[in-house]
């Protein structure tokens, strides 16, 4: 097992290298750069080529591509992501500010999704083709059909029109003021969590139905075991594997992918930073964010694989 873990960790390096090369090239293939985005988009008529050249030189964009790439890779090896081409601030500082919010939101949304998906999925499977099953299916299909940002807009309008109240507009860390923090983040967490719970619920239901038809469940029932015990001790452990995969991957996605929901709730998270970075052609920032998200995905995948072995002893790794 230890060798397997070591091998998996080692395999992450070429993957990350591939991502680094790909994102570096892709960004430079797209037309426009940060200097154009900064000085040509505001409708001014006084921009000179001299100014553009000074700014490009300042940012190292006058250097050949290979030199820009080696400088960046050298920094990455020292875990130095450089400075944002747009703000001139260290990238770690730019990301750190948003990471706390995005991480907390991802944890809250994943928790809500898990707490809804697992019991509802089990309930629907156990009560298959009864009104309970139909109700759960309606609830989960509605979740699949509604984009989380749309649900978020509905939530905001309801709070505004019915309760004459809006969530706080500025992020307050949990440790500074838990109430303010939750008052802002619980709504997007519910909107996003519900959406992801729907996928999990559907997956949990079908996995559980499959497991409940297995011979060993029939044997357990024939032995007269209590249903709750059969479900928790024998069925759940096997049925939960695909659900675990989905929720874990969604967690990694939530870290940087909640662009529209962040806009709707005015959250200063990584998703917005990503989109702003792309619109501004902030190469260094986008490169760092892509590396961060790629690492998060690889790491979550790795943890899921380890969890598989723990949940299902039949799985062996070499």
């Amino acid at each position: 097992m230890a060798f397997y873990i070591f091998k998996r960790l080692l395999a992450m390096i070429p993957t990350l290298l591939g991502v680094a090369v790909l994102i570096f090239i892709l960004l430079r293939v797209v037309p426009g750069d940060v200097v154009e985005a900064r000085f040509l988009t505001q409708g001014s008529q006084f921009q000179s080529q001299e100014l553009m050249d000074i700014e490009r030189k300042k940012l190292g964009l006058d250097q050949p591509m290979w030199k820009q790439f080696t400088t960046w890779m050298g920094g990455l090896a020292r875990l130095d992501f450089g400075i944002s081409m747009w703000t001139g601030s260290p990238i770690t500082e730019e990301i750190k500010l948003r990471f706390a919010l995005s991480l907390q939101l991802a944890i809250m949304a994943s928790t809500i999704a898990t707490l809804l998906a697992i019991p509802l999925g089990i309930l629907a499977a156990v009560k298959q083709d009864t009104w309970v099953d139909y109700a759960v299916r309606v609830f989960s299909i509605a979740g699949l059909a509604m984009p989380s940002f749309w649900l978020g807009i509905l939530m905001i309008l309801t709070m505004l029109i019915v309760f004459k109240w809006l969530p706080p507009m500025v992020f307050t860390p949990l440790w500074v003021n838990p109430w303010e923090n939750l008052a802002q983040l619980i709504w997007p967490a519910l909107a996003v969590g519900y959406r992801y719970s729907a996928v999990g619920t559907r997956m949990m239901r079908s996995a559980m139905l499959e497991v409940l038809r297995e011979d060993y469940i029939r044997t357990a029932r024939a032995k007269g075991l209590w249903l709750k015990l059969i479900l928790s001790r024998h069925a759940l452990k096997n049925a939960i594997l695909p659900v675990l995969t989905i929720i874990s991957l969604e967690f990694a996605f939530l870290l940087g992918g909640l662009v529209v929901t962040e806009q709707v709730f005015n959250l200063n998270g990584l998703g917005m930073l990503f989109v702003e970075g792309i619109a501004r052609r902030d190469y260094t920032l986008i490169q760092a964010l892509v590396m961060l998200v790629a690492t998060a995905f690889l790491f979550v995948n790795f943890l899921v694989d380890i969890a598989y072995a723990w949940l299902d002893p039949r799985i062996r790794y070499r």
Partner: protein
Amino acid sequence: MSTLVRALAVAAGALLAFPSAAQTPRNGGELVFPVPSEPPSYDGHREETFGLIHPIAPFYNTLLRVDPNDRSGTKPYPSVAESWTESQDGKTFTLKIRSGIKFHDGSDLTARDVKASYDKIIFPPPGVGSTRKGQYAVVEKVEAPNPTTVVFRLKQSSGSFIASLLSPYNFIYKADILAKEPNWYEKNIMGSGPFTFVEHVKGSHVVGKKNPNYWDKGKPHLDGFRAIFMSSSSAQVAAVRGERAHIQFRGFTPKDRDTLKGALGDKITVQESAWDCILLVAINHEKKPFDDKRVRRALTLALDRHTGSKALSQIAIVKSVAGVQVPGTPFATPPEELNKLAGYWTDAEKSRAEARRLLREAGVPDGFSFTFKNRGIPMPYEPLGVWMIDQWRQVGLNVKQEVIEAAAYFGVIRKGDFEAAMDFQCGYIVEPDLDMYKFLSSDRNPANYGRYKDPVLDALYDKQSGETNVEKRKQLVRQFEKRVLDDEAHYLMTLQWHRIIPHSSKVKGWTVTPSHYLNNTLDTVWLSE
């Protein structure tokens, strides 16, 4: 008696014009406003976005400013300079610097700081970029003969020089700091403005608090302000509607205005103005058949701007039919005269018939097809693009729209890879020199994307720029306008943007102007409760 009646009428008129001025300002409170964009740096001399002006301008003073009560946003008003004089030949401007202004670090602001700030803008040291250097090409040198006098010596007379000193970006920085590190102000804030800097949380907000030592006694009225960065327009509207924010200084759409007014009634006050921003159509003179002025004139004649204005102003942030100056401002062409230009006629059918005739004469076949490049920004690029394509279709042109992503757009257009393309101009003050520079020959201005050279037009520009007599200058501006929009039809104007500010009725002491870069020092603003 008649004198008394006239005096009362004038007083009543003044009260109606400036209701906030008639009330006693209340001190206290924090003004909260969303800002749709965040500043890349804090250096006004370097940046060009309202995202810098809205949250950062309250920390600074400028040499002169626009009168905060002037709705045309063009009248010079004292700030750091308390008065100014112009020499007989119009080549020397002497400004008297106010005594007693202190920077937030407690040091005195003198003429030396003004000179250092303007030197950085006009004659930046090697390696320091200045976005407004080209705007002050007429300045030969800046002098500070004593602590209360600044002298600008020009290479030739200029009718617009004082207006160029009203730029809200030209923050006065401390000379000693600039001498040590010219880029210091990119990452630091230290001005002499009505508010002092408290914090900037990146991506979230900027907070300022009242400067108790502000030189303009009794101001500011607010205890502080909080500028919250909010890119989503629906979130901005929700913030005002939910009374979590008082005002958004850039502007809302007509639909947003109606939503807010419908939901909040008298709690919302709406101020509107023609906006000093406009979408133009650049026609590439290097591509056939657009090198033929008959074709370009046909393109502008095809647009029924008067009907378009009525329809589009319901759904987009555009309204007035305009020439090269914002309607209602000193140099704007009166409507009856403007309506004589090609594409501005009130008889749309006659105009379209003329467009068809010109196209036939130029040998352009019916159903001629070309591509119109538009920028990937929904408001107002999208509705205007759709409108123009329909207008051109009505004179037998078959136009395909190609939308290019916003950040890449001007890079593509700059290279000349287009036939006709949407262009954009936005100014901080309505002034012929600033607004007409765009149309100069491409060898004088690389931002002329029409890629033409017109020495006659350039000469007209230079002539009006040096003319200090306002009436004579107006005539020259009219000639320039006729040549660029009608005779040569180098560029096509669409419709003037329309600025709509629905704000909390608690906000007083703020007047809308045509520019969203103006009136953001917040020293005159107060909250009624």
